[in-house]
């Protein structure tokens, strides 16, 4: 069954079992490998994308559930790495191994969309679903605050 998808503003048609998680359609069928697999059970956040602007774990989202919706991945967050969160992440030097960071950045971008000046508690709540094994948490917090400043400037 062909499923029509809109990913980063580009239309795709994939012929695949409808229950296939969006994560694997992105990575293996479409070749957008910036979105990562970490657990497959919605517990690490490495696979976070935006579906109609909402941070969504793509490993537990059936591809059929996003037909007709707007999916944005890390590759589509900006054309030139200029999203305030990306700028802030470079400035603060957030990533270590970087494997979790696509998910961290997508969660942070969705948070700032909703709450341009998030409180510490809002940051904790929005980001607690994203594990960073390298332990970059305090830079993630600093990065979110910096991105908030950049957006507000």
């Amino acid at each position, binding site marked *: 069954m062909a499923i029509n998808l809109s990913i980063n503003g580009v239309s795709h048609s994939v012929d695949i079992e409808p229950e296939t998680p969006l994560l694997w359609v992105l990575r293996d069928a*479409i070749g957008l490998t910036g979105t990562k697999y970490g657990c497959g059970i919605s517990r690490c956040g490495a696979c976070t994308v935006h579906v109609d602007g909402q941070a969504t774990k793509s490993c537990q989202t059936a591809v059929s559930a996003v037909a007709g919706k707007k999916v944005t991945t890390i590759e589509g967050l900006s054309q030139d790495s200029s999203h305030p969160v990306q700028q802030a992440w470079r400035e603060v030097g957030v990533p270590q*191994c970087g494997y979790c960071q696509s998910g961290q950045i997508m969660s942070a971008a969705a948070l700032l969309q909703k709450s341009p000046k998030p409180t510490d508690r809002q940051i904790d709540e929005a980001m607690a679903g994203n594990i960073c*094994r390298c332990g970059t948490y305090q830079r993630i917090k600093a990065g979110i605050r910096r991105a908030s400043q950049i957006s507000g400037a």
Partner: protein
Amino acid sequence: MTDVNLSRRALIQTSVGAAGGLLLGFHVPQAHAAKTESRPWTTPTKGVEVNAWLAIDPDGTVTIRVPHTEMGQGGMTSVALMIAEELDVEWSKVQAVFADANRHLRNNKEYVTMFTAGSQLVWRQHPHIMQAGASARERLKEAAAQAWGVPRAQVAAKQGVLTSGARRATYAEFASAAAAVKLAEEPAIKQAKDWWLLGKDVLRLDIPHKVNGSAQYAVDTRLPGMVYAAVKASPVPWGKLKSFNFEAIKNRPGIVGAFELRAVPGKRGQPDMQDAVAVVADSWFRAKTALDLLPVEWDFGESAKVDNAALSAHAKKMLGETGLMTKEEPKALEAIAASKKVVTAEYERPFEAHLRMEPINATVHVQDGRVDVWSPTQDQSVAIQLVANQVGVPEKDVFGHTMFLGGGFGGNGAGGTAVTRQAAELSKRLKRPVKVLWSREEDVAQDKQRPMSAARLSASLGANGLPEAISTRAVWFSLDKANQWGPATADYGIATMPYIIPLRHHERHNLDTHVPSSTHRAPGANQTGFMIESFVDELALAGGWNPLDWRIEMTKGKDDWQRVLKTLKEKSGYRTDLKKGEGMGVAAVECHGTIAAACATVTVSRRGQLTVEKIVVVADCGHVINPRGAVEQIEGAAIYELSHAWHGGLDMRGGRFVNTNFDSYNLLRIDQAPEVEAHFALTGGKKWGGMGEPAGPPVPPAVANAIFAATGKRIRSTPFRLHDLSWA
């Protein structure tokens, strides 16, 4: 049957996607920054190779070839910095690529080592890496000296320009001539006082690629005609695969086949395969789904009777029996037996997995006359050797591609795990590229674990409250009685503690288990640091001492320890008079040539809820070449170890680990992560130490000591989450 429509379309779309990705690219306005690419193993160099480590383009770009892997520890940037320092070239003119591992082996270890572990890259490898830059610089000077008819001493090399009197040329102009120069004597490397680049804050080169999804990891490898494999090895290590029923899944979409993989009989070494079954399909999700539905029968043997409780009981029993004496001092035992004031305690820690964020994977393509491997390994040359051995081809025909690693932590050392052999074997049989990806559950269950360990510690106190004698006995579980990572690590930390106690006696038992083990960020110290540094806290308090002053007193005359501990005292504001429910704790551990001390501040609610407010770390690694990078490693290592100590603990039942994903084997998350503040107290001079690991081991005991200060509850095992911390 194997090439369903999905994969054909996938390939077409990928090439578009990849090209698009590269076009999007990004030229981040990073002032005066060097750079690398998102696929830094394929970057072409137009330039002239001066030596194996660097090439110079006509426009002055210097391409530095990095033989080590980049797993977030900053290895790529560190190598580039050390060479640029010696070469004396503008940092903005530097680009880094990964060195060719095949060439390294072909040319008799041309890069000396590709091993990326043990916090050694700066600590141990800096002499030969800096030497490569210094040697290139002197060759450039010599080439100019010959052309200009002046002695080399009258040629200066600075920021990519050679000058002598009024003469001036760029490095690029003399690159070809320099490559042919033979120096009578190789130059010495610079002393720290002469550095112009090292010691300054530099943003890591890999960071821009890690904010837009373009950084390529081994798991991202996509090749024309590639198929995907999901594997399941015996969940009880070393069990035998009896049978599986392919009929049950063979008509599922995209299935290529199911294959058995066999352990090499009698070999239980680190990267060796276990009995396993692999399902291959045209997408990983299809392979994994089919594997989950595949009926498989195993024979687990005796190991199926082992669980955490049985191992723990065995450890306890062995703590009561005399072990191998690695530090024999009968007088210590006599003094303790005769003393009226003795403190004795037993500590224990469980198995822990590495949990690299990038689950274990490898892609191998076996063709006639050429094999390619994409592996998240901490030593590319070992991955090549493993694949050559598995496929049965000469090493010179195997080409390794160095990707970014989604974490390593010692678990990807020595070629990593069995996954590389699995991929090689499957590609050999299928004659096409195969990507093997372990599910997270497989990644945890089949990891080479950090060994479970335990210790009994006893000490007698003298009239001044300070210890006169100490006797310790450690137990370390590791495969094949500790041929793997046993002897050295079991004694580490406890037997090597710095405290000046007149009489010291130490024994160890290396106990056999069926669980494969391996190095794990700060081997030995990561388990025993908690035991010894909690125990000396007990000693200090029993003797009426302030625990930080005790450590300063007990390291008198050791300048580096004194500097670190006194700096910790000054920076942390450590105090012992906080109100109940609040506490501070300290600990200090040396590993990888570096001393690291930590002070933790915690609060514990009456109901026992722990909050770690802050951790201050002071380190002496001798020299720091990139303060920004060193601070990142302190922050990361502190959180890494706290994560295990608070939330970790593998649970073995029926011979297998049962908590194999983040729902049951959790990690520290942002809402519990304390602030980490890093300071340095550097010895300098001849002292160099590692920085990727040492900040971890003192953190769990510092937190446990702070919990004691807050609640009066002494924690003698991890994870903390299993302890009731409530108080009244």
